[in-house]
């Protein structure tokens, strides 16, 4: 990784916290990048990953046409090219969007994650979205355009007490790119954040993302993650439920084709009682693609009356496709409700028959059901917004499900 780090050192000159960033790069160089002998990277095709092939990001690609339709449904639209803020259009009272110099960097939360550490050392600034107390805000659309090379976008979203916000992030472009975004969410007392990620990067891209959420008393966060693109696509979505009544819903889905690998990870940490998390992961793997689902629910001692559930369903569309499902529970309290279920198998036969019994051919029924995995994830959005994505999903699913 010497070539990459040489470029990286030159890039951080002039950035805030350059000295600390340089020190962190040195730490990363000493530790090295993970290998498949590390359990958490066991399923990643790291032997195909050579970070030295990724230079500074080049001009980003044009965004697909459906994004123009999406902009009509958003109150604020922010364009980010290769992790750098370009422009914001629109405004909402009580919502503040800024491109911020965060000063000192804090690598402590990411000690176990070399790619998140790289982001910590190399992100240019932080895109910050803050919602004031008691503000019921509309929708912010973040359009990430990714060009060839390595980029490290960083986002922080903070929803204050009794406030509401919906954020939609779309990732596009990414030919021969390596993009490692980190996003941090803070959901205040009785606040509500809905966050939807729609990742449709080029099939040559390496996408290694990480999100962390901190949810306070009676706060609610719904997160939908839709993964279509990437050669290797890793989405790690963590949440810490720190106040009684906090809720976290995480819905993830993927559609794999060619040699794609979709690697979905989650860690829900229930620090206190009467907290609730629901994880639903559904996806389909075609051709020679692979998927991995690894979810950990952790419940601390004393977190009584916690309710935590995780469900993972994988559909294999070809004999060469493969799916691994690794649900984990770490429970240190007795007075809890906890459940997990996982399956790898075909589509639900009776649901398919229901569609066939309406006159839908078997092939179209299967296509509709796979599209349905994605549409279900978009159900938190208003129907007119979901429809924009659905049209794009239909095109993509038809490419894969011949």
């Amino acid at each position, binding site marked *: 990784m010497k070539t990459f780090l040489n470029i990286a050192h030159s890039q951080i000159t002039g950035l805030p916290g350059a000295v600390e960033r340089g020190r962190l790069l040195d730490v990363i160089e000493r530790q090295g990048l993970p290998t498949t002998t590390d359990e958490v990277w066991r399923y990643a095709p790291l032997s195909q990953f050579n970070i030295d092939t990724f230079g500074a990001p080049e001009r980003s690609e044009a965004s697909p046409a459906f994004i123009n339709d999406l902009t009509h449904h958003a109150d604020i639209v922010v364009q980010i090219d290769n992790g750098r803020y370009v422009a914001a259009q629109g405004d909402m009272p009580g919502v503040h969007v800024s491109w911020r110099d965060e000063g000192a960097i804090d690598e402590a939360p990411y000690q176990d994650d070399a790619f998140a550490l790289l982001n910590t050392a190399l992100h240019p600034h932080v895109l910050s979205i803050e919602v004031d107390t008691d503000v019921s805000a509309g929708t912010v659309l973040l359009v990430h355009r990714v060009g060839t090379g390595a980029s490290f976008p960083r986002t922080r979203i903070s929803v204050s007490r009794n406030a509401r916000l919906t954020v939609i992030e779309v990732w596009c472009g990414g030919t021969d790119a390596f993009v490692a975004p980190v996003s941090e969410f803070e959901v205040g007392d009785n606040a509500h954040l809905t966050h939807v990620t729609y990742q449709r990067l080029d099939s040559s891209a390496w996408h290694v993302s990480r999100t962390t959420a901190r949810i306070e008393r009676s706060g609610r966060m719904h997160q939908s993650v839709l993964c279509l693109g990437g050669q290797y696509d890793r989405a790690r979505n963590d949440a810490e439920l720190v106040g009684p009544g906090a809720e976290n819903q995480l819905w993830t889905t993927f559609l794999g084709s060619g040699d794609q690998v979709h690697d979905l990870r989650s860690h829900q940490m229930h620090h206190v009682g009467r907290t609730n998390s629901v994880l639903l992961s559904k996806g389909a793997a075609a051709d020679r693609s692979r998927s991995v689902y690894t979810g950990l629910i952790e419940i601390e001692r004393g977190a009584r009356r916690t309710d935590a559930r995780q469900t993972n369903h994988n559909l294999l569309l070809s004999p060469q496709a493969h799916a691994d499902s690794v649900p984990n529970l770490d429970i240190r309290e007795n007075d809890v409700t906890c459940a997990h279920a996982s399956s790898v198998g075909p589509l639900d036969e009776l*649901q398919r028959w229901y569609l066939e*019994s309406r006159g*839908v051919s*078997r092939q179209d029924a299967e296509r*509709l059901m796979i599209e349905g995995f994605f549409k279900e994830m978009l159900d938190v959005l208003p*129907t007119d917004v979901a429809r924009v994505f659905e049209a794009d999903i239909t095109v993509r699913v038809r490419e894969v499900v011949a």
Partner: protein
Amino acid sequence: MRNELVIRDLHARVGDKEILRGVNLTLTSGEVHVIMGPNGCGKSTLAHVITGRPGYVATSGSVTLNGTELLTLEPSERVREGVFLAMQHPLEVPGVRPVDMMRAAGVTGNVESQLAEQSRRIGLRTELMERFVNVDLSGGERKRAEVVQISVLQPKFALLDEIDSGLDVDALGLVARRLHEATKEWDLGILAITHFRRLLHELTPDVIHVMSHGKIVATGGPELAEQLERDGYEPFREIE
């Protein structure tokens, strides 16, 4: 042209168990036939075998629509020939919207407005058609949604598997009247499975069949329903 659905000496099994043991029945356009019978006699199995439910296997006999054998066709092809099943327990299909399902079933034109119009005709809130198929719908709403689909697809024949269960009195009246209108509007033929006479008040059947142990054991007019209500199924068990 009068359409004709002919079930001839139909035998069928579910798993290793023989359920249908030689069903014969002929239904023509615009007619309303009702099948009544005790629990487990094979009424729903008949509907599922005709429409090709997985696991329901016809072992002999035939079901033809205007001379075309249905049992060798895929389930969707049977519908396109003109036979539709309104289910007793309509299934949820998360992620699939009724409008997309109807388009995939071959409905053309403004499908949204067709669904909305037909929903209004039977008092179903039109916004329910925006949800995924049957998801978060009550039992009664699902039954009405099945009737909306019949009205949009306009099949030649509708098999109604306990369409009356889960419906309140008012909804039952609306549904039954809508189906009765359909027998005039596009000559829909109906084969209704029910346990209750109240459906018959609005649906005005032409023929009533009694089924027992996988066979039709009696056929008659509306007076047969009155006899069933008075005497139960016991006398028909003796006929076997």
